């Protein structure tokens, strides 16, 4: 009884199994001789292609920025312009640039945040040379890509409101960080509520 084993396996194969019916083994040139010859008959050796740099385990990663320091990212006090961090810090400490918070999976500005946003608009109105970046964030519960879009929507909601308050659109831009830069580490509503936000960063003065 040849090929008992072969008869069993296709049955176990999930889905539309192609039934290799038993005994006709597809012998290719690189196959080692089976038991008939009994010995390790000399057979052609098959060369396993190494699949390029990736399979080889080296080389790749040519993408890097020259003189690679940590890439500059936003977040509370990490604007992309030197000096911006201090200005932002001062404005935040004086209650002139306030973070706006959002409901879960929402990007409309709550009535309770309108007052804070109005204060931000006043500050920008009084400091006409300042340019800001609005950074939109989401909490960790959603999906990564959706959260990037959600952060973008939140930042744009804020910008739209400021624009309606008379702040020139040229003075603002938006970056979404999705769920990537939480203000608070934590896995409960207390942390999530603080992480669903739009922050203000001064990028030019």
């Amino acid at each position, binding site marked *: 009884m040849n090929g*008992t084993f072969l008869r069993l396996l296709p049955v176990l194969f*999930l889905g539309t199994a192609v039934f290799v019916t038993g005994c006709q083994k597809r012998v290719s040139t690189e196959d080692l001789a089976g038991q008939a010859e*009994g010995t390790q008959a000399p057979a052609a050796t098959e060369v396993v292609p190494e699949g390029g740099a*990736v399979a080889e385990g080296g080389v*790749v990663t040519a*993408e890097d920025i020259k003189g690679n320091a940590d*890439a500059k990212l936003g977040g509370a006090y990490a604007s992309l312009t030197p000096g911006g961090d201090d200005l932002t810090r001062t404005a935040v400490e004086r209650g002139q640039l306030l973070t706006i918070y959002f409901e879960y999976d929402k990007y409309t500005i709550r009535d309770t945040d309108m007052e804070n946003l109005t204060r931000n608009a006043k500050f920008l109105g009084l400091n006409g040379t300042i340019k800001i970046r609005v950074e939109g964030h989401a909490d960790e519960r959603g999906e990564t*890509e959706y959260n990037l879009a959600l952060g973008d929507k939140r930042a744009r909601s804020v910008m739209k409101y400021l624009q309606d308050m008379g702040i020139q659109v040229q003075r603002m831009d938006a970056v979404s960080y999705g769920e990537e830069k939480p203000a608070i580490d934590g*896995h409960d509503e207390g942390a999530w509520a603080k992480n669903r936000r739009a922050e203000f960063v001064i990028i030019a003065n």
Partner: protein
Amino acid sequence: MTTLKKAALTIAFLFILISPAWAKVYIDLAAPSVKKVPIGVQEFKDLGSPPSASEKAEREKLKKELMDAVVTDLKFSGFFSVIDQKANIEDPASSGITAAETDFKSWRAIGANAIVKGGFLVEGDRLTVEVRFFDTATERQILGKRLAGSLRNPRRIIHYFSDSLYEELTGNRGVFTTKVLFVSGSGGNKEIYIADYDGRNAMKLTRNRSINLSPQWSPDGRRMLYVSYKKGTPAMYLLDLTTGRDEQLSTKPGINISGRFSPDGSKVALTISGEKSPELSILDLNTREYRKLTDNHGIDVSPAWSPDGGKLSYVSDSPGNPHIHVLDLHTKNIKRITFSGKYNSSPAWSPDGKLIAFARSDSGKFNIWTVRPDGTGLAQLTFEGDNRNPSWSPDGRYIVYSSTVRGAPSLKIMRADGAEIMKLNTGIGGERAPAWSPYLK
């Protein structure tokens, strides 16, 4: 095994073969631990001259690595239960690796219906491995190969053999030489990594120390699409995995995210927000022109191409919360296909086009589900922990996904029906957002 038993089993197998309807039920209801074929694996023999004292430890390590790869592949196939090596009776030192030099009786005695034996030869940087697969009942070799490769990657040689074995046994291509891309923030910044299908040989692909997300394969397996903050804002890049050449692909204002290659590799579907709202577009890779697909005030992300390239499944919040939709690229007709669950995300079209896998949450914890592209046939595949970002194996038989249990994310593979969950041990930790490669050879 007695002759009588053997005869009885043979009759049972024949019965399965001649009654396909019954066989189908058998597959669906099979309790894997009962129905799997017990297989013995013998320690690999060093076919070269005895190693010097200094080489000895390396050779022992190599022996273990080859064995581990064989056992991993056999288990992963879902066909076999591997018998603990400690049960083996035949002495590897005194027996050979061919059928004639094998005492099949001793393997049958430990319940092995099949065995794998092998040997290896180290010559400088070159590693030659001989692997043979035998049926212990018929005492015949089913497949034997001598494979030469690099000593730097012994597992790849075994995976190569496993592909051949799988094809020999099922008639279908194996996925043992495929790879998985994923994101990990374990080094402090989210970077993208690549690993073998089983998680081993993990290697960092990005090192820009910003945030790198959403790795995706080109259909030919040579390039990777990803999102990076390396220049400050979320933009899309294309990394040639064979040369290391990195290219900015989409750097429009706002977000440039969730890029997916079309099945023919000529286009990329992606989400860009521009000055307005995150909308889907198609970027033609030849002309570099964008064609806008959606235009509303909501969020449209995570497009997944149907295998024929005619449709896109994606996530839209237009119903008020995120749901899966299907856009017909010819008729422009949009059909919503999920109606329950508070949050539906990351659709992934199966390679045969028959199912869309996605992640659904009601509570903040996601599970993987599948649904037909017309919205019927909803099925939940995972039930424990937080499970996201499904990605199909190129044969459609498995799904890799990210799974968080008690706070620690990792990658897991399950069969496409939700059975046989296997954790990938990459050694990196905190793995997310897996993308299973196409066939790579």
